[in-house]
Each structure stands twice: as C-alpha cells, then as structure tokens.
C-alpha cells in the first residue's frame, strides 16, 4: 500500500470510527475533539507528503501541486471547523452527524483534487455534493428560518443533480470519441472520425456548463446567493470555499491537460463567462443588505477573475499553477476566516446588525476589516499579492479584454468592500443587539492568528511565493 494514500485513508477510517461513536454515544464534545484530531493528523501527513516524488496511484495523481491544493483544502476545513463546537452547542440536535458529513465533504474534495480519471472525479463530486445537500438542510427545530434552509437544500439538490447529469453526458460523449476516461485524454487533437467536430465541442460545452453551474459562474449563478443566505453559516462557508476549490481544480486541470482554451468557440465562451461573472457579480453585490448574499456575489466575481488563469499560455514566465495556488490561498483563507468570524458573531446576517461593530468588539471587527481588505486586494495583505500575480500574468499574455473587465470589476468591488468597512466603523448609540455573541478566547486566538498570517504574508510574501514556485516546478 502506497504511503501517499495515507491521508485519505486516515480520513476514511476516522469517519467510520465517528459513525460508531455516534451510534453508541452521540456526544458533542467527544465528536468535536475526535474530528479535530483527525483533521490535524491528516494535515500533518499531507504536509509531510509534499516532499514525496510525484506519482499516480489508483487513478489518483499525487503531484506536489495537487498536494498543495489538498493542504489548502484541509486548512479551509480546519478554519471552518474551529468555531463549530460553540455553534452546535446552540443547535443541539444530533451534533455528531454534522461532523460526519464534514468528514465526507473533506474526503470528497480531496479525492476530486487528486483525481486524474473521470470515474474517481465523479465519485468525489457526488460524495461532496450529497454531503453538502444534507448539510444545507441541517438545522435545529428552534431555528427561525427553517423554510430558507429547506428551500436552499432543495434548490441545491435539483441544480446539483442537473449539473452532474450534464457533466456525465459530456464525458460520455467524449468517451465515445477518445476511448479513455483519463482527464488528459480529452484533447481536441485526439479526435477520431467517430464523432463530428460540433458534437465534440458540444460535449465540452456540456461539461463546462455543469462545471459553471457548480462554480456558480454567470450566467449559471442565480441559485448561489439564495443558497448562501439559507444555509447555516459553516455550511455556507464550505459551499463557497471547499466545494468551489475542488471543482475549480478539476476544471483547471481539464483546461491545462487538454488545451481547450485554444479552441475558438471554447475561448469565446469562457471569455464571455469570465467577463460577465466579474462585472455582473460585482454589480449585484453593490446593493446587498445581507452579508451572505454580498459574499456570494463577490465570490462569483472572484471566480470570474480566476477564469483568467485558464487563458494563460503554458510558456508564461509565471506558470499558471503558481497563480492558481497563490490566488486560491489568498482568497479562500480570507473568505473562510470571514465566514468563521460571522459564525462566531451569531445572527449577524444583515449589514445593519454589523453596524458599529468596531466599537463594540474591536478585535473581531479589525480582523473582519483585514479580511475584507484582503478580498479587495489592498496592498500589504496577501490578497494584493494574488491580484498582482494575476494582473502581471495577464499583462504578459496580453489578455487586454479580460484585464479591462478585471479592472472595472475591482473598482466596482471597492464600493461594497469599503462600504462594509464604513458600516463596521459607523458610530452606533442606539443598539447593542442581544443576538450578537461575544467571541470566546480560543476563537479569538484563531482569528488573530489568521489575521497575522494574512498581514505577514502581505508584507513579506517571499516565503510563500518562493515555496510555491519551487513546488510547481518539482
């Protein structure tokens, strides 16, 4: 048995143990600590695996690049996991199941990131999606907006199923053509005369359509804001970080291996999708009063920016993998920390409830502000380095159209990010909402830790950029 499989195996075993634990004694604290230990152990093992040579085992592809994405995924899960105990304490129905589903989500995401074959990719995708559907509907009886959660779960169930079906159809057609289901076998040059050209393009478009649905990129984005608003906060965090990370990594590999961007139609479609996502996502975020809806639209825009990476040529001076890792790292860490903070603050879902937070809870508000600044890409945060890499590389590849959209998008996004800062710093004399929770010590420590990482790597990005560039080459 190969050592590289150890992290995933560990997670699978621990999820089975968790099942037994729930069956015998469904105790919140015990489940919490067990999950935490399992996640840390997996993370440590994964970090050790970074040094291992790249190889393929059982349809999984262990390259340092994939391992880095796995580490990122585990870090995201850990950030989301950290404040869970307290949140579940208030919603005390069947806490163990939440951790079990969290386990399965993580396994699904890791499998998708590592997959180099369609079958295992689809397995991971379904594991992730199905666990997420259960998680979206996860709620307790006394929770007020039960309807929202169920509405969101049903929406996600139907759309996710449609997305998966469309992806399946696309891959089936491509399989007819190439006779192989490995993810690097779908290049247009492998085309045989079995299928007409338009059908192959159509198949690729089917796959892209499904992927765009799952990534909630415009014009397939309509469900995402409702979902984030309705789902419990930690689940919303999983949806917008972990699940998107996994799907985007597969999309990226499909483009990287098969050179789909060189096909004229695909290039046009993806460029249009990217531009619409950047502009439309940011425009829709402008007027949102609900912070989850705001983050949902900003996430659409951010993945629109990320689509630029697909268009970069292979012989650029900055390799596209490098930008992908640094951008995902910067964006997702800040976003998951933001969700984690919102989770800790309790029922602060509208901007009005967050008003004047800076004066009530300075530490939480300052962390929140730093994360928002990082999302906005202001210098001295890691978010700026990510944006800078993206701009530098698109200038090098002379992607002027996409760059213009990126520029307009970021200007528009400044409105709502800085409006959020204004809201946080507004003086409020009228209210201190009862629903707002104070932040416990371990959570505060974690928040400060992430804030320090975001700032330190923003001020001195040398370690991470160096690390990533070595990693991608190796």
């Amino acid at each position: 048995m190969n050592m590289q499989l150890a992290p995933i195996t560990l997670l699978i075993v621990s999820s089975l143990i968790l099942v037994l634990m729930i069956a015998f004694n469904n105790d919140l604290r015990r489940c919490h600590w067990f999950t935490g230990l399992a996640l840390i152990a997996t993370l440590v093992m994964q970090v050790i695996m970074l040094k291992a040579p790249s190889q393929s085992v059982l349809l999984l592809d262990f390259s340092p690049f994939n391992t880095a994405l796995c580490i990122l995924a585990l870090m995201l899960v850990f950030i989301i996991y950290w404040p869970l105990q307290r949140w579940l304490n208030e919603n005390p129905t069947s806490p163990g199941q939440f951790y079990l589903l969290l386990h399965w989500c993580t396994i699904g995401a890791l499998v998708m990131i590592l997959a180099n074959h369609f079958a295992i990719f689809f397995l991971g995708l379904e594991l992730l999606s199905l666990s997420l559907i259960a998680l979206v509907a996860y709620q307790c009886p006394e929770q007020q907006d039960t309807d929202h959660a169920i509405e969101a779960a049903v929406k996600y169930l139907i759309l996710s199923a449609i997305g998966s079906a469309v992806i399946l159809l696309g891959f089936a057609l491509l399989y007819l053509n190439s006779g192989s289901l490995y993810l690097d076998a779908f290049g247009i040059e492998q085309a045989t005369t079995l299928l007409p050209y338009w059908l192959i393009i159509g198949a690729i478009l089917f796959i892209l359509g499904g992927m765009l649905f799952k990534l909630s990129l415009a014009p397939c984005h309509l469900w995402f804001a409702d979902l984030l608003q309705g789902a419990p906060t930690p689940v919303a965090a999983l949806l917008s970080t972990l699940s998107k990370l996994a799907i985007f990594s597969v999309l990226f590999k499909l483009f990287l291996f098969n050179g789909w961007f060189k096909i004229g139609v695909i290039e046009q479609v993806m460029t249009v999708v990217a531009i619409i996502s950047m502009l439309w996502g940011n425009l829709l975020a402008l007027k949102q009063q609900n912070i989850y809806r705001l983050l949902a639209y900003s996430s659409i825009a951010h993945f629109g920016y990320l689509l630029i990476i697909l268009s970069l040529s292979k012989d650029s001076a900055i390799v596209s993998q490098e930008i992908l890792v640094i951008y995902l790292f910067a964006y997702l860490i800040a976003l998951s920390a933001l969700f984690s903070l919102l989770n800790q603050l309790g029922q602060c879902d509208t901007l009005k409830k967050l008003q004047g937070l800076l004066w009530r809870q300075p530490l939480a508000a300052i962390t929140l502000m730093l994360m928002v600044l990082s999302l906005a890409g202001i210098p001295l945060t890691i978010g700026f380095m990510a944006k800078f890499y993206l701009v530098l590389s698109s200038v090098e590849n002379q992607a002027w159209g996409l760059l213009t959209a990126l520029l307009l998008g970021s200007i528009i996004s400044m409105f709502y990010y800085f409006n959020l800062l204004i809201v946080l710093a507004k003086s409020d004399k009228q209210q201190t909402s009862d629903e707002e929770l104070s932040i416990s010590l371990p959570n505060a420590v974690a928040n400060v830790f992430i804030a320090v990482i975001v700032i330190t790597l923003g001020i001195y990005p040398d370690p991470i950029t160096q690390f990533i560039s070595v990693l991608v080459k190796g």
Partner: protein
Amino acid sequence: MNLLLLLLLPIMGAGIAWLSGRYHDNAPRFIALVTLLLCHLPLVNIWLNRADDTLWLATINIPWLSRLNLDLHFAVDALSLLLVALTLFIALLALLASWQEISHKSGLFYLNLLLTIAGIIGVFMSLNLLVFFVFWEVMLVPMFFLINIWGHENRHYAALKFLIFTQFGGLLMLISICALSVIHLQQTGNWSFDYLQLSQLSLSNLQQNWLALGFMLAFLVKLPALPFHSWLPDAHTQAPTGASIILAAVLLKTSAYGIIRFVLALFPQFSSEFAGVINTIAVVGIIYGACLAFAQTDLKRLVAYSSISHMGFVLLGCFSLNALALQGAIVQMIAHGLTSAGLFAVAGMIQVRYGTRDLTKIGGLAQQLPQLAGLAMILTIATLGMPGFGNFVGEFLVLLGSFEHYKVFSIIGAAGLIFSACYCLVVIHRCFWGPLKTAERHESQDPVQDVSARERLSLISLIVALIFLGLQPQPILNLTARLSQQIGKQLNAQQSVQQTNITITQEQAR
C-alpha cells in the same frame, strides 16, 4: 538605515499611540508629537552626511520578493528630501490642528494619522515601482478612515468617493507598472521593477504612450486635474482639519512628485508629444478652479477649489519641458503645501469656534478674532501670489519657463493669478471684515477666544516659512538644480528631435 528609520518610526509610533489610548486620553497625541519630532533626526542625519557629487543622497536596498526580483529599494535625492521634510513639517501642523479637535477615539485617530504619514514618506522614497505603488495605495486606507470616522456631516460619502477615484487611477498605474516590467523581461530576460533599471529600457513610441497613460491617469486623478477633480472638494470639506491639511498639503504632492520622477523621466517622448494636451488641462484647471472657488460659500470648499487652481500651475510647470519651469513647479509644490495647510487650519479654527464654515452665516469675525484675522490675511495674500511669499516665486518661475515653448498657456495661466486675487480678497472680506455676523450661539457657551498659543505657533511658523521661501528661494533652487536640469535636458533633446522630424516631414511634403 536612516531611510528605514524614517519609515519605521511613524509606523511604530502609530502602534504605540493606539495602544496608549486605552490608558490615558492625552497619551496618543503626545506620543504622536514625540514620534514626529524623532522622525526629523534621520532626516537631519541624511542631510549632514550627504555626499555632494551624487544625485542620490542616501539609498538602501533590501531583498523583498526574490521570485520576481523585487527589492525594497529606497533612496532620496534633493526632491524627495525636500518633500519628506515638508511632510514632517505639515504633519506637525496637522497634529497641532487636531490637538483639541479630536476628542473621541483619539488613539485610533493618531494611529491613522501616523500611518498616512508613513505611507506618504514611503511614496517619496521608493525607487522600486511596485513598492511605490504599494505605498501609494496604503496611504489611502488610513486616510479613508480619517475622513470616514472623524469627518463632518457627509463623511461616509466623501470617504468612499475619495477612495474609489484614487483606486481607479491606482489600478491603471499597476497595469502600467506590470507592463513595464514585462517589457523588461522580454528585453533582458529577467524581471525587474527597479526604477534605475527600467529607465534604461528602450521603448517604442506606442509603448511609451500607453504606459505613460496609465501613470498619467493615476497622477491626474490625485493631482487633481480637471475631469477627475470632483472627489477633492468633497474629501477636503468633510475631512477633519488635520486630515484636510495633510490631504491638501502633502497627499496631492505625491502625484506631482510621481509626474516628475516617473512620467517625465521614464517617458520623455510621451511628455513632449502630449505636453500640449496636458498643459491645456492644467490651464483650464487653473481658471476653472479659481472660478469655482469664487462661487463657494463653504470656506473649506473654497480652499479646496483654490487647490485645484494652484496645482494647475504645478502641472503646467512639469510639462513646460524646461528646467526653469520644473524648478518653479517644485517651489510651487512646497509653497502651496504651506499656504493650503494654513488656510485649512484657519478654516478649522473658525469651525471649532462657531460650529460652521458657511460664509453666509459668519462675517466680520475680525471684531471678535483680531489676531486670527491678521494671520489669515497674511496667508491669503501669500496664496494670491504676492511677491515676497513663496507662491510668487513658484508661479513666476512656472510662467517664465512655460513662456519659452507655450506662450499662450503662459498668458492664460497668468490671467489665473487675477482670478485667484479675486477669490482670496473676497473670502477675506466676507469672513473677517464688515459687520459682525455669527451663527447662533447659546447663552451658556463661553465667549469666543482669539487664537491660542498653539494655534499662533502653527500659523506663524507657516508664515515664516513662506516668507523665507519668497525672499530666499535660492537654496531650494540650488538643491533641485541638478535634477531639473537633467530632466529638462532630456525633454529638450526630445523636443528638438521632434521638431526636426516635423520640419523634415514638412520639407518632404514640399
């Protein structure tokens, strides 16, 4: 080392001031004062240890991002040194102006104030283009908070508008910087963002024009030049006095500095080709700003529009393509920094006393505030360009220099001086002379006090500096002579090349 200290001292002072705010309300401002005074030490040290034969008085180079060959490359020449000195001086004034005005959350206020100062100093010292950009953006965020938290009635709108406008320009500049670096990569095979290396690049005309456009837009927004000026009246009016002073006196100067350092030096061909267009913008700005200033009833808004007018002279001086006008622009930058700081300080003093800056509600204040009226009178006269004050030297040199190539602009610009005399005298008349008219005051309030020792100190030091600059500008002209002659020569050469080309094409046409 001195340069690093110059940058780190305000940042550390900011942190300490913030933390000290918890223990005592007065602590932050004293810590800020001590920090700013301490900052002068490295500056003096650089000045005393300078070598006379080099352009760069001090440099420091620290590796930062090895993947892209990025260094923290800081250096000061005479121009940077002058502007850093101006920044520190103005920062002290801003501190004195906020001394009483800022009562709530003072720790956070001085944190933001000092961080803004650190950012501005960083802009003036960076020789790495990306580091320049980083400081350029970073100084905006604390300024945003200064306006947003401690500003006046319409502060949220003003802060957001300020930020969006300047961010827009900044992002265009980022694209230009990246493009410049990519061209360096293509020509030499390795990354570089270093000013000294990038100035060696040979750029085609088309490349120069596009790249310079990105830089130019960023600087024109911040300057502010005509179509992009609308953030300035709002930001200046809504900001607390201290922040207004910093905004007008030094933040606007970063853009003029950027034009001289980057646009003129890196893109000489663009500068001479588009000088006519930019000078048109400058001259229209001079006249337009003066006219709008004349029509304002809000005292701070009036000063803000007068800034647009005066910065027009700086822009005209930069693009007159000779050393004389460039020196005039530098003197004008400093003189405008001093006068606008003074006028905003006066506006702040009036607002603190009467709770309004609306010129329709106040008048004849000289009867209650004789000393302030006198000091304000001197500052206003300096603003309108009376000989004997720094502004005259600056404006005169700019007009003289621009007359060489751009006679029409020079003449129209000179007319702007008359307009500025109009609004300056009118504001003095409305505000201080005539029958006494004050906003309604409660009986219980204390009678209005004339200037305190602190206020007197700040205004008189400004006036002394202005008179010194007006009577004895030679030291500053000597300091900047080398830089301006170098750039002027480069631009002149470009100009003559272009003229020869034109004559050749004309002859060929014949």
